[in-house]
């Protein structure tokens, strides 16, 4: 609907008439040179797509921009932990329980047996980021598949899939995670991510189903059917591209949720050997005197979650087509 209002002025494309060439020659014949250059210039103006509006809105969303810059910095630091970390995260040193300082290059201090906490945090970020991105990917994949089938086919398939989704929603996630992590996922980021992904696809499935329910009634879907498209082609090539907006938002916010859950599990001792959650768990065992052992990884988590949520908010605002206004 909204794009109707924002139809670009079709400057001189001259195709409304049945013979597109006609208007052009008339214009050229009747006017001075400078008009022709305007006309040609008009041709070059690229009309803006909905995506470009969304991009513009996103880039002007200050919090989201701050969020994305910070997140990239944090994630890149995590990804290159092996290169950036000044010390081996597992190697004890003589500098036992140094508080955060810039003097001895222990920015985040050291723990009771002298391991550099900045390096440990970096490695923690790496594990956390692996898990969270994998979870977002896995959950989106499952959610899209289930939601798409559910919304597109409807009927008993929809009922079956949505009742299954409800089942996953009412399951006490933490309890299941702890039990499953204990037997399956100990220490491996990939397996932990699989577990989390298998539990957290429900939200995305519902969003995708809702979009498919409304989009499958569109005439362009009928047109695709009339051209001979099969169901899967219609689902994934015609409908899915129109639901990408809400999926991206949900997946972004899910990344935050995954980090929190991974940290929780690790904190409770069922997760990874070295992640932000594990660090906090170790730190709180050390007591309040060594405050930085909890605070540094804790603040990192808070910062990541904040960034992710800001980005999610920004994307949501940017992709909302009812919102033409570009936020300052």
């Amino acid at each position, binding site marked *: *609907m909204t794009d109707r209002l924002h139809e670009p002025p079709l400057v001189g494309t001259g195709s409304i008439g049945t013979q597109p060439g006609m208007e052009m020659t008339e214009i050229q014949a009747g006017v001075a040179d400078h008009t022709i250059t305007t006309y040609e210039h008009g041709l070059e103006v690229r*009309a803006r797509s909905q995506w470009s509006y969304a991009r513009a809105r996103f880039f002007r969303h200050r919090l989201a921009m701050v969020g994305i810059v910070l997140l990239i910095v944090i994630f890149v630091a995590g990804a290159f932990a092996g290169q950036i970390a000044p010390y081996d995260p597992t190697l004890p040193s003589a500098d036992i329980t140094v508080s955060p300082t810039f003097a001895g290059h222990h920015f985040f201090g050291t723990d009771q047996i002298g391991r550099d906490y900045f390096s440990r945090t970096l490695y923690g970020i790496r594990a956390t980021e692996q898990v969270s991105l994998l979870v977002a990917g896995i959950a989106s994949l499952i959610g899209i598949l289930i939601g798409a089938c559910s919304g597109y086919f409807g009927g008993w398939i929809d009922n079956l899939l949505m009742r299954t989704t409800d089942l996953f929603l009412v399951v006490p996630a933490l309890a299941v995670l702890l039990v499953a992590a204990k037997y399956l996922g100990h220490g491996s980021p990939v397996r932990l991510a699989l577990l989390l992904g298998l539990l957290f696809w429900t939200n995305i499935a519902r969003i995708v189903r809702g979009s498919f329910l409304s989009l499958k009634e569109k005439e362009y879907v009928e047109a*695709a059917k009339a*051209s001979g498209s099969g169901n899967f082609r219609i689902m994934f090539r015609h409908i899915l591209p129109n639901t990408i907006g809400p999926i991206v938002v949900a997946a972004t916010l899910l990344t935050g949720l995954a980090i929190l859950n991974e940290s929780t599990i690790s904190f409770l001792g069922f997760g990874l050997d070295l992640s932000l959650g594990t660090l906090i768990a170790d730190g709180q065992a050390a007591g309040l005197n060594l405050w930085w052992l909890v605070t540094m990884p804790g603040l990192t988590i808070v910062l990541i979650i904040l960034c992710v949520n800001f980005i999610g908010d920004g994307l949501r605002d940017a992709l909302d087509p009812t919102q033409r206004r570009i936020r300052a």
Partner: protein
Amino acid sequence: MSLLEVQHVKKYFPVRKGLLQREVARVHAVDDVSVSVQEGETLGLVGESGCGKSTLGRTIVRLLEPTDGEIVFEGRNISKLGAGKLRPLRREMQMVFQDPYASLNPRKRVGTIIGDPLEIHGIGDAKSRRARVQELLRTVGLSPEHYNRFPHEFSGGQRQRIGVARALALQPKLIIADEPVSALDVSIQSQILNLLGDLQEEFRLTYIFIAHDLGVVRHVSDRIAVMYLGKLVELSPAEELYERPIMPYTEALLSAVPIPDPDRAEARERIVLTGDVPSPIDPPSGCRFHPRCRYATEVCKQVEPPLTDYGNGHLAACHHPLNVDQATLERVRAAPESPAEADKSALPVDSSGPSNP
């Protein structure tokens, strides 16, 4: 042999209710309609909103499953074909949709939209498809440079041209145009109609042209079928329908066509139908038009009239036909296209309107 024969096609939509989704009623969207279409002709399909004309069109191209009846295309019964066998048939019949804003995928470029049917049917390689799409763009009066644009960069009329190009891509024999101009400006309507006419000549196309605007239909059709509440009530060569409507419903429809000349408009009798179209869930007994018909008598409530052949390819289903003289009335016979439930012996005996054609 006709290109397309629609034989006693019914399309009912179930109305489901309750926990068990029991079927409590059926919407009689298309109820026993038979009509044939000759190669190269344009059949106009008119009627009020909700009379089942779009449903019939969609059923013919098998976007909807017919509840009953047969659709015979080039001598082949296609009403029961599965999705796989239907695919090659999609090349033969295509559809142009009503709303050019909804019928083009907003996320796809024009080139992809028009080229999609070619890709599905594996016609040519990417390069030849591109050339073909650009040729199609030119055919429908757009410019090949529009290949990489998005639908929202076009006006309504241009979008409809894109829709037409998509329908043409597979070089179909039959095109079902579902109100292709009703969403457009009046000034643009004629452009699209002319385009469709030119294309018909160029590619020997057959059209089923669905519309609720009788003025538009008159302009394009060779024959016109009038539908009311899922039934075919009149079928006639185009000019004859306008000069000599037999069914009172058609008469009422025609009297609603605006006349640009105020004096003539003043002189004309306006027949205003009272009430709404009855619910197709529980359609009236006998002749479906009887609750709103000014000529209706007892027999109209009881007996469903057969489609009666008045000669010259003019069929109408009415107990009290208009514009028919007594001599013709004595000759008439029930047409084979009559619905199964109609009483074939209940032929009209009197004419209620002016009896000289």
